[in-house]
């Protein structure tokens, strides 16, 4: 539902006075002063016409608020739905059928007012763009702070990792060397003991063999002693048979018998001594038998040390392998994190690129505002302060482009084909 257009007021006396007064003042004043020229008459006529234009301007219908209780128009309803203030959501001026010239002026005035009402929109847009720049700067600063922290942590982590790696390698090498040295020392000691034991065993075996020979000799001597005793007994018997002639021989036989008895006693003593020595050798052999057990223990101990040495070597190899593989991989990953952090440090620069693009839009916005201001002044019958054509705005906006992307988007939006210039991002002169 539309509201009826208000009736145009009739020409007021004061407006006629203004137009007539202006014309007369310009045209008549030179006549009074006696310096009338044809040009003054032309000026007087033009002034009268201007007076008429001013009069028309003053006849512009006032914007009337809808009557209280009247239903809002569709335009107002739409505006209300979008949250547009009533001053901006003004009803378009209805065309008057009876006075087309006045209607055109009224439309021009309304359009000028619309343009005037657009001014807050430009301010809001400008502030919105600045707010976006501020937000991206804030976000970039937060990202940079996080990156700094991440970078510091990564650097410390890499340092700790290197230290741990060196320490593990050092401990592994020291442990390996110590165990190896220990095993070698014990092995040398056990080898020496083994050699000594074997030498002792050989000596005892030789002594035992010699004692056995001695024992055999004693047995032989005992047989000789027994034969001698029998010979002495027989000699004594034969000497007794010979009577007085065998007296001397009987003395020899007796002496021979005493000798055999003494020899038998010595043999018995020798046997006792040999037996004692053999017992001692037997005890030594028993000890040696125990020593054989010790020898076996020594061999097992040596084998154990060899095994320990092998374990130490294996442990060292595993540790070194871990250092080379796992820790190297962790170090590699840490390094990769550092590289990524560096990469993000570079990528954050997009914020500055976006900021400059937004600033270019802001400048275009300001120029558009100037242009509309000029239009508004023209519609109001005033001379624009700084006339600006839309083409000039676009051209000036282009001058503010700094990135290749801006130029590309501009050309794409206008359907232009631009020569692709492949300018390198990095150029050393």
């Amino acid at each position: 539902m539309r509201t009826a257009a208000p009736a145009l007021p009739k020409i007021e006396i004061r407006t006629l006075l203004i137009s007539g007064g202006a014309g007369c003042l310009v045209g008549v004043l030179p006549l009074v002063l006696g310096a009338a020229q044809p040009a003054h008459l032309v000026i007087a006529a033009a002034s009268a016409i201007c007076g008429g234009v001013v009069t028309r301007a003053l006849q512009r219908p006032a914007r009337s608020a809808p009557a209280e209780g009247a239903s809002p128009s569709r335009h107002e309803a739409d505006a209300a739905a979008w949250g547009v203030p009533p001053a901006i959501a003004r009803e378009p001026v209805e065309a008057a059928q009876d006075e087309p010239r006045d209607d055109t002026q009224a439309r021009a005035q309304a359009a000028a007012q619309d343009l005037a009402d657009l001014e807050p929109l430009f301010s809001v847009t400008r502030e919105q763009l600045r707010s976006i720049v501020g937000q991206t700067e804030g976000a970039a600063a937060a990202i940079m702070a996080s990156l700094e922290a991440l970078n510091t942590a990564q650097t410390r982590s890499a340092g700790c990792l290197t230290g741990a790696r060196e320490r593990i390698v050092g401990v592994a090498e020291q442990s390996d060397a110590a165990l190896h040295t220990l095993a070698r020392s014990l092995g040398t000691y056990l080898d020496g003991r083994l050699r000594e034991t074997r030498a002792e065993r050989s000596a005892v075996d030789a002594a035992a063999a010699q004692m056995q020979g001695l024992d055999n000799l004693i047995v032989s001597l005992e047989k000789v002693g027994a034969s001698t005793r029998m010979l002495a007994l027989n000699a004594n018997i034969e000497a007794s048979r010979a009577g007085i002639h065998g007296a001397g021989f009987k003395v020899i036989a007796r002496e021979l018998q005493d000798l055999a008895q003494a020899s038998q006693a010595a043999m018995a003593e020798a046997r006792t001594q040999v037996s004692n020595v053999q017992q001692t050798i037997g005890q030594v052999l028993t000890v040696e038998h125990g020593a054989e057990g010790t020898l076996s223990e020594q061999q097992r101990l040596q084998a154990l040390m060899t095994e320990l040495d092998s374990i130490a070597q294996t442990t060292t190899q595993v540790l070194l392998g871990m250092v080379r593989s796992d820790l190297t991989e962790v170090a590699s990953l840490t390094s990769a994190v550092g590289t990524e952090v560096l990469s993000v440090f570079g990528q954050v620069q997009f914020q500055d690129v976006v900021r400059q693009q937004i600033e270019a839009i802001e400048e275009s916005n300001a120029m558009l505002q100037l242009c509309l201001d000029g239009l508004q002044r023209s519609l109001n019958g005033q001379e624009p302060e700084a006339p600006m054509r839309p083409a000039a705005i676009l051209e000036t906006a282009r001058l503010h482009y700094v990135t290749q992307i801006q130029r590309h988007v501009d050309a794409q939006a206008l359907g232009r084909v631009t020569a692709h210039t492949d300018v390198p991002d990095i150029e050393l002169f």
Partner: protein
Amino acid sequence: MHKVMIVDDSPTILASMSGILGSAGYSVVKAANAEDALGQVKAGLSPALVITDYHMPGMHGVQLIEALRKLTQTRFTPMLVLTTESQQEKRDEARKAGATGWLVKPVQADKLLEVVKQVAPSLQAIAA
């Protein structure tokens, strides 16, 4: 001590460049505009490398390079322009002013470090 001077009105770029160069072991000094940078050099700072933005409030980057080239301690210092600007005319202008090279934002960290090593090899000695 040899330092890399970063000149940019964007705090993001200053932080980004400091992060990249600092991680690589370089010592960085920052300036928020060309006048600040010029003042630091006139006060005695002798940077081993200058990396400057082009578009800044006040003097722009190429004007800064021209001014620094007139000072004794920065007459032969390598100077790079790091900018969003992509016009060839601006590059030519920078070259004539004595710039060593031209980098377009955003620049990748590894590429930046390569360029730094290339144009300022003496800085490698203090790099970690």
